[in-house]
């Protein structure tokens, strides 16, 4: 018995340490994720990660998850007559623009993409018309404009509290997400997850974890985008001074890149799905920024097009935080209508 206890203790110790080390490695977790996607499935003991079918579906753990599954399939046929100009296009964006196929823009001879959260390494090309697009989702725009140092701009004086809390939380979230993925991302755990989600939905009328159902039950939303407070929410209070700050920061970023030699720069804020699909109580962040008299940077006004759409149900994927193929087409058309001018 004593020997068994010793072996058990050392096994727990070694496995625990290995799991901690593995979870702290982004590349290791990504490799596991990649392997799961290639080899996992409903009939295996390890789950396939649902991201291609909807990044919120696997978090919601709903019995009727098939209702929300939609395969990610972004394609775009570039019009034949859309020019052969000499535009070097740079997109500083996030997962929305990362998914866009490379050869869809008119007049563009070279395209570079980078994450808006990373340091910007774009250098304007000589002899080309250098156009920069900064794309951000609505839920991150206040955060990004407050704390980002990626544009070589000093952060504002009041950034520390918000940035600090989120910086701390993001590392904790990173480790917890990875540990949960490595330890519990198995099909045999699903009945337990679903039981909890069903309890929450059927008795408490709310979704599970970070996911909530839209009021009509047709979409999944990130909880933080529909919360009554917080910087990610479409419904939290936004003061006029906060809007002014965002505008000033956008102007500052515009001046910064113009001074670096970019010929033109655009901002594009992608509305939260809740903003468009559940507009009652919307705080108006995007239109208030875009209508500001102080704003001097050009914008791709996706909010106006989406919010006036006769059929908003087709703009976003049902179980995902991202736009649908159709929604993406609208944005690319909008960009191309500007690119053809060069």
């Amino acid at each position, binding site marked *: 018995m004593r020997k068994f206890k010793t072996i058990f203790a050392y096994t727990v110790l070694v496995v625990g340490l290995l799991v901690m080390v593995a979870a702290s490695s982004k590349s290791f977790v990504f490799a596991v994720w990649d392997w799961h996607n290639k080899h996992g499935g409903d009939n295996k003991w390890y789950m396939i990660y649902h991201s291609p079918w909807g990044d919120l579906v696997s978090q919601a753990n709903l019995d009727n998850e098939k209702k929300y599954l939609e395969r990610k399939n972004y394609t775009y046929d570039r019009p034949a007559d859309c020019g052969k100009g000499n535009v070097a296009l740079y997109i500083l964006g996030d997962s929305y623009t990362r998914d866009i196929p490379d050869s869809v823009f008119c007049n563009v001879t070279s395209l570079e993409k980078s994450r808006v959260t990373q340091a910007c390494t774009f250098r304007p090309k000589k002899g080309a018309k250098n156009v920069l697009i900064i794309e951000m989702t609505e839920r991150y725009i206040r955060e990004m404009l407050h704390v980002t140092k990626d544009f070589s701009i000093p952060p504002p004086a009041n*950034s*520390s509290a918000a940035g600090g809390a989120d910086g*701390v*939380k993001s590392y*904790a979230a990173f480790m917890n997400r990875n540990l949960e993925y490595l330890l519990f991302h198995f099909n045999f755990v699903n009945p337990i997850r679903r039981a*909890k989600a069903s309890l929450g939905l059927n008795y408490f009328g*709310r979704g599970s974890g970070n996911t909530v159902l839209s009021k009509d039950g047709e979409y999944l939303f990130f909880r933080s985008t529909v919360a009554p407070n917080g910087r990610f929410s479409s419904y939290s209070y936004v003061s006029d001074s906060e809007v002014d700050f965002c505008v000033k920061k956008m102007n500052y970023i515009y001046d910064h890149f113009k001074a670096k030699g970019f010929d033109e720069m655009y901002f594009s804020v992608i509305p939260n799905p809740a903003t468009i699909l559940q507009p009652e109580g919307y705080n108006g962040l995007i239109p208030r920024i875009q209508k500001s008299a102080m704003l001097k940077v050009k914008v791709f006004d996706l909010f106006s097009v989406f919010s006036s759409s006769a059929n908003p149900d087709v703009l976003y994927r049902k179980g995902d935080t991202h736009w649908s193929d159709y929604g993406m087409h609208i944005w690319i058309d909008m960009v191309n209508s500007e690119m053809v001018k060069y």
Partner: protein
Amino acid sequence: MIFNSIHFLVFFIVVTVWFFRLQHQRSRVWLLLLSSCYFYMTFIPVYILILFFTILVDYYAGLFLERTDGRTRKLILTGSIVANIGVLVVFKYFNFLSASLQPALHALFPSVHTPILDLLLPIGLSFHTFQALSYTIEVYRRKQPAEKDIVVYALYVMYYPQLVAGPIERPQNMLGQFHEFRPYNWNNVKEGLLRMSWGFFKKMVIADRVAMIVDHVYDTHQQQSSLTLGIGAIAYSVQIYCDFSGYSDIAIGASKVMGIKLMENFRNPYGAQGLAAFWKRWHISLSSWFRDYLYIPLGGGRRGALRTRLNVFVVFLVSGLWHGANWTFGLWGVLHGFFVSLFPGVKTTEGGMPNGSRVGAIARVTATFLLVTLLWIFFRAPTIQDAFTYIGGIFTLNGGGLSTGLNTTEFLLAVLLSILMFGAEARIKRFYFGSDVLFFVTVFLSVIVCYFLGVVGETKFIYFQF
């Protein structure tokens, strides 16, 4: 890393199992110190340098305090206090003081702007600063010999279960335990794990559920009825108790598993018959810290009634600002000071039972709870103006329905669980399982309840911000 996370559970299992595999106390101390460093560095890694700085200052201050006499000792103590409080002022209070001075300065010199530092507040700074201060003060008072082993001293400041939110320990309680080798004891493990389970239940099942009511009511307080505002205020009393005492239970339990005993931090505070009694039962480690290191040195109750009241007032003002660099906390402290000095409390018999009738006792407990609840509004509201608007909303007796942010089933569940928790709280801490089977069944059920009824997420503990 926060306690209610998978990260902590894996960390706790690894550290505890490793701890018991080590056969020398020196190795255990090193293990606990290094794990505590890792624990702290998961928040903001570079801030560990601040801890190292204060540890070095206080360690050497302790050694010199022991060797010297006369004025030199006072100078050393002053140096240690200035270093510790200095760090606290720079990181926690500088921007607050600067912003508070700005209007006055601006009126006199319109072009002058007070500086704002772009610094993040180190997690638990107020807690470990006070713990470090208690060491140098105790050595100065010759009530504690200076710790010769810097690793042990560093562990005293950084011991992970109580590093970020207490209990604020005294050197007499901790240093000896770090020198003593404690063999594996199954009863300690059982007691510790049960205490942790209870803490997780209070935090995940009650505090984080009730937090949804509180957040909803405070975020929309201007549109809410008096009934809703009253419920929201009571809900915050429940939330902050379950959140903070839940944290303390987990800390005490995690430490107990390894055989290291931490002090109790709560003793049924909402059962107190008067505000003074409440403070003897709420956050005991902080209250006793202020009593020993501020109230008594100021003269305590030895210099007449007026001076005593003034001392009480000062202590509560400082205690309020200790919680946060915001005038809401200051006013919360002042109001507590005002009521404590005005109504010092009910005299009790030696056994702790109050004199007087049972009805009278219930009335006093109720009145104290309602007063504490009302004062918590200043603690929770983002601004003083919001707090007054909230309180005004309660007393204007606005009609309207109840809007809690939860559906009826979940609201009733929250109420029921809170009542059950308060009913069981006093007994459960003393509960001991002789039977292993009963112990395993209880822990298993706790895990089930915490998972299925718990609000699972990364919700921080309220007191982490201090």
